[in-house]
């Protein structure tokens, strides 16, 4: 679906993206993780055909991004981090307008509004919407023309837990429908939950690329933490691969004296810091 080979780009004489290669398969949710200025935005501008002066190759849906025609956008949906809607128009009018820019038939607006719980707010002006409502409306705007590839930028940013859950379910639903999703996020929990694979991008290069699970399991030594009571509460810890050698743990298990027990892998954030030496800010 997306093939990037030896991609390089520079705004000045200094390389900004260098020698980047990766593939995104159809139906995959692929995450770009990296600190600000790492090159994620530039990479996505290349993939959405806004930057055409790159070297190497970036092929999306069989089309080289630098030589695309305007019909290229019939199959791309972009959900920006911020609202990209006419504030004085209603939600319905906005969706109607943006839908009219596409040659293909657009999805039913009422159904889309209902899918994000805005069915009773379609006639409200966007300026009267809360941030969460705008985010949801922005998201369904990207889905209007039923694109094969979705670019999502921080789709859960600023949403309360309920709306964040709705948004994540919608993304997973689109994946189930066969959409390819490119997700940019700083939220490691979202990335771990939504992405089939993630790429850590720092200084214009990919430092690591794998499934979140593999990244976590390859790099981290998972441990087991347990608590028990012998007058006062105590905590014990051992490596997951050496539980049988922990005599205390064995004895507590035998006597059913464990009060709590958890395996604790490093988080994706820990792995990111370990691999890149940077934090996600």
């Amino acid at each position, binding site marked *: 679906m997306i093939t990037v080979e030896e991609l390089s780009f520079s705004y000045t004489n200094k390389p900004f993206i260098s020698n980047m290669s990766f593939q995104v398969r159809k139906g995959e949710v692929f995450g770009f993780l990296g600190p600000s200025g790492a090159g*994620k*935005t530039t990479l*996505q*501008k290349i993939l*959405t*055909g*806004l*930057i055409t002066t790159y070297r190497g190759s970036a092929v999306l849906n069989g089309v080289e991004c630098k030589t695309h025609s*305007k*019909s*290229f*956008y*019939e199959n*791309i949906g*972009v959900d*920006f*981090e*911020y*609202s*990209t*809607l*006419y*504030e*004085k*128009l209603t939600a319905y*009018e906005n969706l109607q*307008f*943006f839908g*009219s*820019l*596409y*040659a293909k038939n657009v999805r039913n607006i009422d159904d889309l509004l209902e899918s994000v719980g805005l069915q009773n707010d379609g006639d409200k002006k966007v300026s009267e919407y809360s941030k969460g409502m705008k985010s949801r409306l922005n998201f369904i*705007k990207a889905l209007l023309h039923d694109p094969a590839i979705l*670019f999502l*930028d921080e789709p859960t940013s600023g949403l309360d837990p309920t709306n964040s859950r709705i948004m994540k379910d919608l993304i997973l639903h689109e994946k189930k429908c066969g959409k390819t999703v490119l997700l*940019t996020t700083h939220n490691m929990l979202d990335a771990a939950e939504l992405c089939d694979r993630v790429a850590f991008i720092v200084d214009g290069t990919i430092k690591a690329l794998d499934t979140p699970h593999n990244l976590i399991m390859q790099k981290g030594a998972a441990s087991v933490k347990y608590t028990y009571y012998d007058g006062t509460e105590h905590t014990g810890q051992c490596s997951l691969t050496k539980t049988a050698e922990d005599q205390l743990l064995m004895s507590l298990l035998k006597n059913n004296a464990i009060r709590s027990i958890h395996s604790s892998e490093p988080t994706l954030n820990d792995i990111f810091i370990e691999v890149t030496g940077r934090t996600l800010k």
Partner: protein
Amino acid sequence: MRFIKLLLGDIRFQFKYGFYFMYVVFCVAYIWILLFFPAAWRQKAACMMIYSDPAALGLFFMGAIILLEKSERVLNALAVSPLTIMEYILSKVISLAAISTLVSLVLAIVAGSDNIPVILLSVVITSGIFTLLGLIIAAKINSLNQYLIATVPLEIICFVPPLIYLFYPADILRWHPLNSSMRLINGSTNHTACDMMILILIFLILFLIAHRTTQKMWKTIGGVKL
């Protein structure tokens, strides 16, 4: 079909943002002022009004439109849609020219002008010229203050010579390209086709420049922070 929908979308946008209401108010005010003038003065007064306002409204409104689209980040969404830059520009030009033409028609009728078809044709092209000038400037600025400052020299160049020319058609002013518009609106031209051609040529040159600046604007704004 997409272009028609885009055009209707632009007209709806202008309606919702009060452009049409504003011009109904202006139109009533202009008619009221025109009716105060003696009949002999009305035609020249109407020429002055038509040239400096409805025909030139694009110069004032494009700044507002582009700044609104920038502040609401709609341009980002348009840049990643199948919409072409040519469609985007033409839609703005035609939608604003529609307001220019309607208001000019009313003023020309009230003033008793006898060359209304030529006036309207001239207003359509002149409106396009000012809209493109507004677009070229607005594409490069980020605040209303910047826009107002940037348009001052342009207003002096585009308005002062034609308005002087309307009352004192001195030879030295004759070659100012926008005096073609003033001559056509005033009905004082001896070379209608030639003046029309000059306006069309200016329009085409500005269209090419506006296309380049809009392309640059879409590339630098569109998707800047994906």
